[in-house]
């Protein structure tokens, strides 16, 4: 669900270190922090940009930057990936570390979660080791207060030796203080002495051989002690990164090489191999975090997370966990379907009234018939269709889904479903990327970055299209309403629609698991990698923010894109339907050509062509189809779905056609945007092709079996 202006518009990981200062006086501030601590909210509040935020770990997988001014200084705020550590165990951690250490930021803000400070101190302490220009932002102070957790910010600042600001970024509280502190740090108005973590004596004596030699040689803001500690880790890639950054090979300096040798001898003599060394370093940091936390955090009410645990016991229980999940999905669909009906027809009435006025206008100015056909019957009608069919379900579905996201329910979905994914040899976080796919598959594919293992990331990427994005929802809903629920009346209609739609989604999930397993057994052989998933505390959602964000960032953005595609598509279809060759329109020629093939799969030539022409955006499949069926080559006026049904039935549709179209809509090639995103993410045309072929072949196989099975059994 992460599709928004920001998440698609900002630069990607590979450009991570490139920050352009517009004017020389600008200061670059890196925004670091654990996943899910409100980092994006801080970013948005400071810069006024709408980067989408969500309550699940590892959301910020791209790097966004924005500007703000405080006092006399302009700042560029760079939102680096949320990580628990800078030890470079994953791509995100490496990017975060590289930006903090080699990106030359003027200061680093580390955002921490006040309700879980001890865990966050790990990253804070690691950052302090690398750079002293740090401001700690203890966010979610309001949540902490509600949970009766008290944080002594002054003592924390004293312990860490750097400024600390307590904030509730969601309400905009404390951000002034944060900006003041950042301003002070970047204009060198503070003179703190940041905490230096003391490691066991043998490590300290090893460092003492190396550190003095490094002083004076390492420049550009690198901390000699940090470099010494890292050199002793024997990390080839980091050594290369340091040398790259400095522009010369550290080991070419005799004093350094000599110190390094002596330090290594010291460690060897004590029997400290690289693995143990790293353990000792991490333990040192964790113990320091524990000690600091003990001094500054007071839990007034022990068992403060009992409420969350009680909720979890129900939402992830053996008996109710999965039924509740399906039930919630069903409720969302039911509200969407029921709620969308009325506004949809009102919109349609309005938009087609406008069409009549446009037609009158064209008549009045005496425009030629072809111009009216092209612009009004072709372009405008397609647009009107897309808007009236798509806007209402999206405007209802998005806020509801954002609500679940904000509450923190989605990680519980991943928790509930993990065992299925494990059996499919896939990653449990694939459930999260599927949730993102509900909004837009391109966003889902980008979201696959939260999966570390390259094999499992590919599995998630290739199968993401089995989740119907919101471009395909209206198609599914329209067909269900016309063919399966249309005969019923009243409340039953929407309940039956909901059940069928939920069934289709569950089928999509089952196909995802089956295909993931198949891929893991064939072209992407391998075992599931290690898996840790954080279940963040439930948070009170903010209704206003949800509505604004989901309508502005998601609905309008997605709709805008659909409209951009629909307008030219409407033109092309109208032209194809009205340019005749050999007594038949181009459209009929193409459809006739595809027809025998399409019939094998329970569809017809027009349907298959609509899917092909819908490659730029799935939203326009149904409009194209309707326009193609209309003999005069433009869409009829949309008054009710019953009329539409008559049109389809007149063109040979049966319930079997409807099922096959729904199945093929669920399982066919990804739209062009998603394909390009897959190419960008995998850096490979081969895997892009696989991502197109796998869902398409699956869909064709399923449709073939269903269509011919039903025909053989004499059902249709």
């Amino acid at each position, binding site marked *: 669900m992460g599709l928004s202006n920001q998440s698609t518009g900002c630069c990607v990981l590979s450009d991570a270190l490139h920050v352009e200062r517009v004017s020389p006086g600008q200061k670059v501030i890196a925004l670091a922090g654990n996943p899910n601590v409100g980092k994006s909210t801080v970013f948005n509040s400071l810069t006024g940009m709408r980067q989408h935020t969500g309550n699940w770990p590892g959301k910020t997988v791209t790097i966004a930057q924005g500007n703000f001014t405080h006092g006399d200084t302009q700042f560029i705020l760079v939102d680096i990936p949320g990580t628990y550590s800078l030890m470079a165990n994953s791509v995100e951690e490496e990017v975060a570390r590289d930006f903090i250490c080699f990106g030359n930021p003027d200061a680093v803000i580390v955002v921490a979660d006040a309700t879980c400070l001890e865990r966050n101190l790990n990253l804070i302490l690691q950052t302090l080791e690398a750079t002293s220009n740090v401001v700690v932002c203890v966010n979610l102070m309001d949540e902490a207060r509600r949970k009766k957790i008290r944080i002594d910010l002054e003592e924390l600042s004293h312990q860490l030796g750097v400024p600390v600001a307590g904030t509730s970024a969601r309400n905009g509280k404390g951000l002034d203080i944060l900006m003041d502190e950042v301003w002070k740090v970047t204009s060198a108005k503070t003179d703190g002495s940041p905490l230096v973590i003391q490691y066991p004596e043998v490590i300290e004596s090893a460092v003492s051989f190396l550190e003095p030699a490094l002083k004076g040689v390492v420049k550009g803001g690198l901390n000699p002690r940090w470099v010494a500690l890292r050199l002793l880790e024997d990390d080839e890639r980091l050594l290369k990164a340091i040398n790259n950054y400095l522009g010369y090979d550290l080991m070419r300096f005799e004093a350094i090489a000599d110190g390094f040798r002596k330090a290594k001898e010291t460690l060897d003599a004590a029997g400290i191999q690289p693995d143990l060394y790293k353990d000792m370093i991490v333990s040192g940091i964790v113990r320091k975090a524990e000690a600091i936390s003990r001094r500054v955090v007071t839990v007034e009410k022990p068992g403060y997370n009992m409420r969350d645990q009680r909720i979890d016991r129900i939402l992830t229980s053996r008996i109710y966990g999965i039924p509740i999940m399906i039930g919630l999905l069903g409720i969302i669909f039911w509200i969407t379907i029921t709620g969308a009906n009325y506004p949809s027809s009102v919109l349609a009435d309005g938009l087609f009234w406008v069409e009549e006025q446009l037609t009158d206008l064209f008549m009045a100015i005496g425009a030629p018939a072809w111009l009216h056909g092209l612009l009004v019957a072709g372009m405008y009608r397609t647009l009107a269709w897309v808007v009236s069919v798509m806007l209402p379900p999206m405007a209802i579905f998005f806020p509801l889904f954002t609500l679940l996201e904000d509450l923190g329910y989605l990680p519980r979905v991943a928790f509930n479903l993990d065992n299925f994914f494990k059996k499919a040899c896939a990653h449990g976080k694939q459930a999260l990327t599927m949730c993102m796919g509900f909004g837009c598959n391109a966003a889902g594919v980008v979201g696959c970055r939260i999966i570390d293992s390259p094999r499992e990331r590919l599995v998630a990427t290739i199968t993401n299209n089995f989740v119907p994005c919101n471009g395909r929802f209206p198609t599914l809903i329209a067909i269900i309403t016309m063919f399966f629920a249309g005969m019923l009346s009243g409340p039953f209609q929407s309940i039956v629609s909901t059940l069928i739609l939920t069934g289709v989604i569950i089928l999509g999930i089952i196909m995802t698991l089956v295909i993931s397993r198949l891929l893991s057994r064939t072209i992407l052989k391998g075992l599931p990698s290690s898996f840790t998933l954080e*279940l963040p505390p439930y948070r009170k959602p903010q209704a206003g923010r949800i509505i604004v964000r989901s309508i502005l960032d998601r609905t309008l953005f997605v709709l805008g894109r659909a409209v951009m595609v629909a307008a030219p598509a409407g033109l092309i279809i109208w032209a194809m339907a009205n340019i005749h060759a050999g007594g038949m329109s181009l459209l009929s020629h193409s459809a006739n050509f595809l027809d025998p093939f399409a019939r094998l799969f329970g569809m017809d030539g027009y349907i298959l062509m609509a899917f092909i022409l819908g490659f730029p955006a799935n939203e326009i499949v149904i409009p194209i189809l309707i326009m193609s069926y209309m003999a005069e080559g433009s869409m009829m006026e949309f008054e009710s779905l019953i009329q539409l049904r008559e049109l389809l039935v007149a063109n040979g549709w049966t319930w079997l056609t409807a099922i096959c179209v729904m199945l093929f809509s669920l399982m066919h090639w990804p739209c062009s945007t998603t394909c390009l995103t897959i190419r960008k993410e995998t850096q490979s045309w081969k895997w892009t092709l696989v991502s197109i072929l796998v869902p398409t072949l699956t869909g064709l196989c399923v449709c073939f079996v269903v269509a011919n099975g039903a025909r053989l059994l004499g059902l249709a």
Partner: protein
Amino acid sequence: MKQKTDSLISPGHIMPLSFLPTGRKARVKALMSNGISRRRMLDLGLISDTIIEALQKSPSGDPVAYLIRGAVIALRSEEASQIIVEAV
């Protein structure tokens, strides 16, 4: 992985974390994993003597959610069986 019943596990009992019944606490004694997996466990703060509590099983019994240093983290049995703990 078969799990012992609560009453059989007395304080001081040494076992893999995956054997810890929900609702019980244990102290980390050692990590058996290596490489990236070990790093990841350490990043969670799972150094020796860390107290960890088994909170909640997922519907299928695996993964299990644990309370580790104030954060709720779900671990699959593969990871949990690599963490040796002492029941408290």
